[in-house]
């Protein structure tokens, strides 16, 4: 039994839901993200947020998987500040929906001034609505600088309890600074551009299993929706105990996510739409 706390199921097939259920997935959480192209209007986000909060939970429930969502404009589409503000004005209405856990995945992409301003405005929305926060840290050479900018912005904002913030996509060079600030850290299992399972297990061995989780971040790109159960297999092969495996793949995500009253590992009864 496991939770995949970061996966973009709108980009995955129903067969993936079936395979994940067969591998033991009981719950997923799906942050709002970039579709692979820039949406031409804010109305496109209105439909996307409806998909995340209405359609996708039904699709998941058919396989006994509880589906939850995070709402935001992803940093990859945040370079147009006026457009981003138009989308952000829609967020509060969706935060009260029954499967929504909070604001995410917000953060930085190329570490621009506008991305940072939009990130700070998202933090304020989360603070005003007492929401959990899921944060995307930048890719590759931008990750170290971006993670520092993000952590400094959170500290300067100062209105959100760090224990209610998950900073995702950490790697060897960023995990310690996140944990030292009292936040949770997510490790994304990607074939090439983030953590392999082997490196994620190394990081657990070096930094422990407190306030840390693993996820697939499966999306429309090069990614694997079964990355979490495959990492579980690797942890067994590396000699880790069943207790540690359960903690990293189930107990930890459940503990963080349950800070939102909307999280449950029990999928609603399937409905025919």
């Amino acid at each position: 039994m496991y939770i995949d706390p970061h996966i973009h199921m709108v980009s995955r097939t129903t067969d993936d839901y079936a395979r994940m259920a067969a591998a033991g997935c009981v719950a997923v959480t799906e942050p709002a993200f970039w579709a692979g192209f820039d949406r031409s209007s804010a109305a496109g986000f209105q439909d996307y947020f409806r998909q995340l909060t209405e359609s996708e939970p039904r699709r998941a429930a058919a396989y006994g998987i509880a589906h939850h969502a995070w709402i935001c404009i992803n940093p990859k589409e945040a370079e147009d500040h006026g457009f981003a503000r138009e989308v952000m004005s829609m967020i509060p209405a969706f935060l009260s929906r029954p499967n929504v856990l909070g604001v995410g995945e917000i953060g930085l992409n190329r570490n621009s001034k506008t991305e940072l301003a939009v990130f700070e405005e998202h933090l304020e929305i989360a603070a005003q609505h007492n929401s959990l926060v899921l944060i995307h840290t930048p890719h590759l050479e931008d990750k170290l600088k971006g993670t520092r900018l993000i952590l400094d912005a959170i500290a300067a904002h100062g209105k959100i309890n760090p224990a209610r913030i998950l900073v995702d996509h950490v790697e060897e060079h960023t995990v310690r600074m996140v944990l030292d600030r009292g936040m949770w850290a997510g490790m994304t299992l990607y074939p090439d551009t983030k953590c392999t399972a082997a490196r994620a297990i190394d990081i657990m061995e070096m930094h422990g299993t407190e306030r840390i989780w693993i996820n697939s971040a499966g999306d429309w790109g090069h990614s694997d929706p079964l990355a979490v159960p495959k990492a579980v297999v690797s942890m067994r092969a590396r000699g880790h105990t069943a207790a540690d495996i359960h903690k990293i793949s189930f107990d930890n995500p459940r503990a963080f996510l349950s800070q939102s009253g909307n999280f449950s590992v029990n999928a609603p009864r399937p409905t025919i739409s």
Partner: protein
Amino acid sequence: MTTPIGKPPLDRKTLIDLGFIEARAKVLDVAAFLDRLDRAPATDVMTDFRVDAIRAALVIALDASPARAERILNSWSDPSTQPIAHADGKAARGAHLPR
């Protein structure tokens, strides 16, 4: 965590048995990638900062100090500290472009 932090549960010999073939394959892939570049027709650019970054990382991988993965990631990272004026595209390159 039920095992001491910093210590893998398995001993060195078992970890070698478990991971050697995969590591061997990855080392060969890197070597073959560099060979491929040598065989390819030259362009007007003599070097590429990304390939230079890989060569520099290999030096780190071969040294005797700990935290090689972390130090390689740091070596590929943008060392600047201030946000940039505007995003120059959406995609990162994988290594920092020296200014």
